[in-house]
């Protein structure tokens, strides 16, 4: 799980049975003490593998939306909640946004995008690299650094500062910082419910191959049988580069859905599976 704190933005991403939405009220109180006013909220997630294990308010998307509606101040009056479908019943994308301004792009630079990748059924050999050796005597930081190196994660963006951690007996989390941009990776490597996520931010004005190269590198660290890619961006064009990056490597695009949200622009949700599937 990860937390990013910018002067006027906070991003929290948590897995397991954490009750993420319960952070909203205390965060709003602390921000208010600093003279900051909430102007936008975005909540996203994929489909849980074990939905029945989730505690309130994450028992269903409907419950989550109700909790969000009650927790957010009334001036965030432009609200939208959608489940974006895919051809894979286990991969849907849940999106809730709220804003104080109907105008698109007012809180997000028009050129910036966020990519959230969810990968399941990781390659067994590659997933083994995220298990620690029993009694390795290492700290989580030290074991994390080793995983970053041996898996090739450190090469995804060689210019970034990396903060990594290996859990015991298995699992890995990494945040990277490159100027004002973050990226993050989280891995649950156990057979039967293996999962990895990759998330980064970028600009449509970056060198055209940046997105393609980063996505390729991240996908090849895990070689998942199935992955979903969600892009939040003011304009549509970025998503065409995703299939161009992944199809030559053996993943086939199975579905693509697009929806528009107040302030943040478009969310494009694509799913991919290996051709053998």
């Amino acid at each position, binding site marked *: 799980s990860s*937390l990013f704190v910018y002067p006027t933005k906070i991003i929290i991403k948590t897995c397991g049975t*954490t009750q*993420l939405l319960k*952070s909203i009220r205390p965060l*709003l109180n602390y921000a208010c003490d600093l003279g900051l*006013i909430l102007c936008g909220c975005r909540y996203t997630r994929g489909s849980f593998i074990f939905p029945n294990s*989730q505690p309130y308010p994450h028992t269903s998307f409907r419950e989550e939306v109700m909790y969000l509606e009650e927790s957010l101040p009334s001036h965030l009056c432009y609200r939208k909640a959608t489940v974006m479908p895919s051809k894979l019943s286990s991969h849907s994308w849940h999106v809730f946004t709220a804003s104080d301004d109907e105008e698109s792009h007012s809180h997000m630079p028009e050129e910036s995008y966020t990519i959230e990748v969810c990968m399941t059924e990781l390659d067994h050999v590659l997933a083994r690299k995220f298990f620690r050796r029993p009694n390795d005597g290492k700290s989580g930081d030290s074991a994390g650094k080793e995983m970053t190196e041996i898996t090739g994660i450190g090469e995804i963006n060689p210019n970034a500062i990396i903060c990594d951690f290996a859990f015991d007996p298995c699992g890995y989390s990494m945040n990277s*910082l490159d100027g004002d941009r973050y990226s993050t990776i989280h891995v649950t490597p156990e057979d039967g419910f293996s999962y990895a996520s990759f998330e980064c931010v970028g600009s449509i004005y970056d060198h055209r191959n940046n997105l393609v190269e980063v996505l390729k590198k991240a996908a090849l660290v895990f070689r998942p049988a199935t992955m979903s890619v969600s892009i939040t961006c003011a304009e549509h064009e970025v998503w065409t580069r995703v299939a161009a990056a992944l199809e030559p490597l053996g993943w086939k695009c199975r579905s693509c859905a697009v929806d528009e949200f107040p302030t943040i622009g478009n969310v494009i949700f694509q799913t991919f599976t290996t051709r053998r599937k």
Partner: protein
Amino acid sequence: MAVSGFEGFEKRLELQFSGDDPAGLGLRQLEFESLEKVLHAVQCTVVSAVGNQYFDSYVLSE
């Protein structure tokens, strides 16, 4: 698929704020203790942290 196991799929929340802050630090002024209280509500803790001139990043348990 396993009957039960660790849920990898994350929930992601992004909150955007506005306001006048001459120093420009905004939310970065929050005491670590305050962040810990927020994370306590979520049921996780900080295991590692690093920051640069633009933002602070924390790796969390779970």
